[in-house]
């Protein structure tokens, strides 16, 4: 390509004229701009769109993996009916929203407080930030596995609690993962441990972008620290808060890894999230067409949330850009 710099050298390679014509054609703006677009769309077409259409077709079949696919027959909306009447589907959906709600609220509160404190410290600031961001980079499976080690009956958590429980006559070897309510919170806390780092990061960048003059002006005018926080800082942090809520809730609704590693959906079905439920239906019970119908319904439920989330995200990111432009 270097010959294209200023003038095209005379000695074009033999047979180069057709190649050059191709290159010239590709270099036109109307063609050039579409090359990457087409490539990416081809990837999406073959990896996501065609499989999705296949799933729509399969969701109308009556088919389990024990019979050949070609012999399956259409069953209309039978699968959808089955999904909508399956109690497991609804309870798994409920658990998912419950987990996501609890985890996101905790993550937001803890992340906000930590970010506020870190943004106001001078000493060891870099060290705190580095440590607080570590969980984000750890593989979720490792987190799940780590917490199984901590939660076992003779694990360190029970040891730390023992001095408080033994005087009360309670056996300190609490079975964290065998009690339904405790197991649910075990999953939530593992998620909070890992993803508070993300809300912390978002809020930290929000705090560091706060305009200093505005806060100083408020202080000079005699505002108390409390007033500055509520009336000046919090409104300016609103975009960061919305972004954190949207991004974390979208991710929290996908929760799967810690459930598999910590509880495998148990005890009973108390920690089955929707991702785990569908995985079990398809990969353990081989109910393919049931799984296809369920995931289409799930997609419909999530699509509205996703649309709303992206709408908020786009609006707030415009607000962030405006705020940071000098």
């Amino acid at each position: 390509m270097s010959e294209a710099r200023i003038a095209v050298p005379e000695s074009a390679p033999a047979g180069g004229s057709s190649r050059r014509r191709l290159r010239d054609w590709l270099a036109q703006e109307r063609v050039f701009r579409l090359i990457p677009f087409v490539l990416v769309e081809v990837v999406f077409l073959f990896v996501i769109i065609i499989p999705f259409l296949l799933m729509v077709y399969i969701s109308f079949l009556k088919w389990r993996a024990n019979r050949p696919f070609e012999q399956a027959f259409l069953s209309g909306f039978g699968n959808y009916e089955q999904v909508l009447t399956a109690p497991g589907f609804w309870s798994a959906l409920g658990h998912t929203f419950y987990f996501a709600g609890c985890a996101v609220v905790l993550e937001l509160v803890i992340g906000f407080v930590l970010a506020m404190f870190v943004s106001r410290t001078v000493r060891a600031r870099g060290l705190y930030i580095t440590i607080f961001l570590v969980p984000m980079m750890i593989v979720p499976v490792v987190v799940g596995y780590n917490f199984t080690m901590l939660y076992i009956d003779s694990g360190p958590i029970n040891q730390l609690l023992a001095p408080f429980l033994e005087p009360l006559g309670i056996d300190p070897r609490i079975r964290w993962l065998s009690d339904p309510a405790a197991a649910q919170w075990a999953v939530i806390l593992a998620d909070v441990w890992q993803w508070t780092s993300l809300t912390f990061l978002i809020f930290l960048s929000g705090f560091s972008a706060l305009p200093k003059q505005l806060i100083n002006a408020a202080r000079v005018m005699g505002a108390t620290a409390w007033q500055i926080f509520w009336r000046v800082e919090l409104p300016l942090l609103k975009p960061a808060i919305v972004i954190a809520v949207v991004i974390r809730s979208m991710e929290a609704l996908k929760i799967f890894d810690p459930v598999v590693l910590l509880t495998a959906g148990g005890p009973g079905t108390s920690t089955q999230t929707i991702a785990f439920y569908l995985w079990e239906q398809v990969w353990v019970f081989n109910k393919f067409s049931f799984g296809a119908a369920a995931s289409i319904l799930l997609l419909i439920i999530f699509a509205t949330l996703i649309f709303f989330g992206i709408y908020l995200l786009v609006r707030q990111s415009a607000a962030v850009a405006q705020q940071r432009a000098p």
Partner: protein
Amino acid sequence: MTTPAEMTDQQADSAGARNLRRRRLRIVVRHAILVAWALVILFPIFWMIATSFKESGEWVAWPPHWIPQQPTFKNYSQIFTFDTMQKGVAREATEQPFNVWGPLGDSLLICTVSALIALLLGTFLAYSISRFNVGGKHFRHAILMIRMVPPIVIAIPLLMYYAIMIPLAAETVLGTRIVLFDTRVGVSAIYIATTLPFVIWMMLTFIEEVPYTLEHAARMMGAGRLYTLRRVVLPLVGSGMVVTFLFVFILNWAEFLLALTLTHPDVVTLPVLLNKFQSASEGRLFGPQAAIGTIITIPVVVLGMLIQKHLIRGFSFGTIRK
């Protein structure tokens, strides 16, 4: 309220001292809370590393041993030795060598290749979107949707697609059977598709920081489009590409659901390997598991620290840039 000018010196002194004391107390409380959270963060990591050096008897001892009493490398040597024994030979569960080399290779290969391909495709598309507004105003948001869809919804159709439809289609069209289920190509393909939104959004933020006038000047001086892209734009976004590559690599490295659902038994990535230990049939082998966990974790934490400043771009889809 009295303004400082109205105070006598003595008053000002005592007020100042009180303020100072109060401020110092506030700083101490703040540091105490921050240190407490740092301990919460470090504790599970410490526990994993400690367990990886423990003998089997110490894994579930009561009261738990915080520091391994006889530190041993046995867990590491177990997972790094090749399995030379015949299959089916009965062994004690705790003596069973679990080989980490195969999954390590699979993970490295799949993550690197898919991150590279996604980076190439995504960078050019981001350039195209930024400069020519390809795909219209809302194209970039449409791309974001793919990332927000729960992966289980993608995994179910992909399983049928890889295991049934592609073999059928290949047999009728090409006459040979091609199965993408349980292959590195299959896993890489879905990783490319799922990480493309991240690449596009991150690269958009980097490319939009390059002033268009530079390219314009190069074009005016007669440089071709590709030449401009290669010699003007790419050098300026090069560090951004490295950051994006590392970010996507970390994402792929951590991916579990798709790897679990689309492979069995040939291709094993590291998270899937770790999950295998967790199943009841193998028993809970905390020691080797901790060793594998440590090996998986340390490289990505180091990589992540290298790109710490840019993590926010990736995780917030470029809505927050610094």
